[in-house]
């Protein structure tokens, strides 16, 4: 590799302006050929190549002002001419090369010849070994990295960036694959990595985040609870009539009211005692593909339809931003889960945390909505649950519930 640097054309010259390129990337040049025109503080001068080769990269744009000594072009000398494809790629990458500060010597002694051995960097034996293995030009790499010493890590990074598309790199990461598993002589895309994964039947291993761990322990505890179910069907004529609000909203409103009449649904077991909460605080399952939360509408019995509406909107925002706080998820004694909007006709839900029961809301079909109550038998008996469901149905079939 032969480099052409910004020459020092006069004693007082610190930087020079690149006026025009006289060659283009890929051009063959002979020793003595004019490469560029450069303007010093005094005049416009020509910059020549002092070696034969092929222009591999032009590192500055016409009009750029560059410090004396910074590399402005690279010429591949005969025995190291890169194949055309690599050249194209290199051209793109090298545009982003950060110019190194000029070396002290080059300031004193103007040097348009530019030595063809790259000085000012070291590389570890292992880095050189790897560079050879990957077919990476370590000098080029040294210029690209700002490190004084090139380590194996730098070669790895460089090879990754050079031979793998960003998506492919991401896949390598998630499957914990080494780049050397692939033949490093072409750009490797996501498809190729996927093929490798399929061929070798590799498992994708994901670690659980704290939220997932909490969810697992929560549902595991829930599965141990002694529960029973009550299956009901609701005449949804009034809900259908009031479509300005969501099904969920009307149900929350009704549940809050009915909870106030049935203290079993406002109770929880704390250290072998039953605590009865004076409010109807309701948790609601909100989720997307990746996360499930049960944020709480605190004291829902006091909320107007409007307040419930804006609270639900808040939940949506928090879900998107994953910004629920611990206190947003605590304090309910009753849960609601609605999969009706996804067309699920009927299902049963798992009780959240230490709550007494959960209501699973199905899709509206033929004027009916299927409701399933799952209750913790330690807190609620069947008779109470039946009464609760009766009252809830009454409430949802009463025009009073739908008053704004």
């Amino acid at each position, binding site marked *: 590799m032969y480099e052409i640097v910004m020459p020092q054309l006069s004693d007082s010259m610190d930087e020079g302006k690149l006026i025009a390129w006289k060659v283009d990337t890929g051009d063959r040049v002979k020793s003595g050929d004019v490469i560029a025109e450069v303007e010093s503080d005094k005049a416009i001068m020509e910059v020549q190549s002092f070696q034969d080769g092929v222009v591999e990269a032009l590192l500055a744009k016409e009009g750029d002002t560059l410090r004396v000594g910074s590399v402005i072009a690279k010429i591949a000398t005969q025995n190291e001419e890169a194949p055309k494809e690599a050249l194209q790629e290199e051209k793109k990458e090298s545009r982003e090369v950060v110019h190194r500060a000029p070396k002290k010597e080059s300031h004193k002694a103007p040097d348009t010849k530019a030595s063809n051995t790259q000085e000012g960097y070291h590389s*570890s*034996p*292992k*880095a*050189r*070994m790897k560079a050879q293995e990957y077919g990476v030009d370590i000098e080029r790499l040294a210029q690209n990295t700002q*490190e004084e*010493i090139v*380590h*194996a*890590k*730098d070669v790895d990074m460089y090879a990754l960036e050079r031979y793998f598309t960003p998506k492919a790199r991401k896949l390598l990461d998630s499957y914990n694959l080494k780049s050397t598993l692939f033949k490093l002589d072409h750009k490797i895309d996501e498809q190729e990595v996927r093929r490798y994964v399929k061929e070798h039947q590799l498992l994708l291993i994901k670690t659980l985040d704290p939220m997932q761990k909490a969810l697992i322990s929560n549902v595991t505890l829930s599965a141990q609870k002694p529960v029973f179910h009550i299956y009901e069907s609701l005449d949804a004529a009034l809900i259908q009539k009031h479509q300005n609000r969501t099904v969920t909203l009307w149900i929350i409103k009704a549940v809050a009211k009915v909870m106030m009449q049935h203290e079993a649904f406002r109770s929880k077991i704390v250290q072998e005692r039953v605590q009865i909460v004076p409010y109807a605080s309701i948790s609601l399952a909100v989720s997307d593909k990746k996360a499930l939360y049960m944020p709480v509408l605190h004291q829902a019995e006091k909320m107007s339809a409007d307040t419930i509406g804006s609270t639900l909107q808040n939940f949506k925002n928090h879900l998107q931003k994953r910004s629920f706080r611990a206190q947003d998820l605590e304090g309910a004694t009753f849960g609601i889960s609605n999969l009706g909007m996804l067309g699920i006709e009927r299902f049963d839900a798992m009780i959240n945390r230490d709550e007494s029961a959960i209501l699973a809301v199905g899709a509206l079909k033929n004027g009916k909505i299927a409701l399933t109550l799952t209750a913790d038998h330690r807190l609620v008996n069947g008779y109470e649950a039946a009464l609760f469901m009766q009252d809830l149905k009454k409430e949802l079939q009463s025009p009073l519930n739908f008053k704004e």
Partner: protein
Amino acid sequence: MLYREALNRALDELMQKDESIVTLGEDVALYGGSFRVTEGLVEKYGEQRVIDTPIAELSIVGNAVGMAIGGLRPVAEIMTGNFALLAFDQIINHMAKLHYMSNGKIHLPMVVRFPQGVSRQLAAQHSESYEQMLCSVPGLKVLSVNDVNYAYHALKHAILSDDPYIFIEHELLYNKKGEVNFEQELDPFKARIVKEGSDITIVSYLKMVDDVMEALPSIEKELACSCEVIDLCSLNPIDYERLKASIKKTSRLVMVEEDHKTGGYGAQIVSWAAEELFYELDAPPLRLAGADVPLAYNRALELASIPTPQSIAEDIIAWGVKSNV
């Protein structure tokens, strides 16, 4: 169990089984040994087998060589490494060589034990390390003891072997606590992996292993890396296999020793790595050793002359930053 108790137990067990095993040295009998390693043995096995000697190291080892030639298994104790210098003629010219010079007719099933290294303010004549000299003598096997479990098993192995052993202990380790696994014998020539890691191989032996371990949390935190710490155990022969596997994994080597740096033992490990593993290395090996000065009596100067947990941490972190660990 304490380090010294593990050594005592190894001696005791074997002396009980095998009458040809004797131990000799200054104050090993009535006084129980300067570091209490031979405590209680004279009461059990009598003055014929637990022998107090004059203050004459050359004669201690000379007698042991004679005993070994004659069919006994002597374990000679020298009070400290510096005193062993007086016995070096016997150790080097006789103990190490007679087997070879007799064309294998003479066996020397003997052990010379001594503690060495920097203790607390024992000054230049009682603080030195001599593994570098002894490891350059072919014919000797040289073991170094950091670990309590290793102390027990390695001493037993050395006593029962038909070869001459140098068994190096450290003055500051005699009261080190540890577990001994009596069920599981070990190969004394295998290096011990004290802690597994993936980014830096730190090789050490004797007391410096403990200092490295003390320095480790701050090193691993500062460099956000994981270190593999290896206790060499056997200084000659060297378990190159294990070192190689570790350095291939981490591609970085740090050698920590207490001895003076110039001509010190760790130079062997580093030069071997340069010769054999050059292309595996991603950073120049780092060698931390004592200063090239006679040890001072003054405590501050003494500590300034050898690697300490603090200096080990500082030096490795500085090197690690430069090497982009």
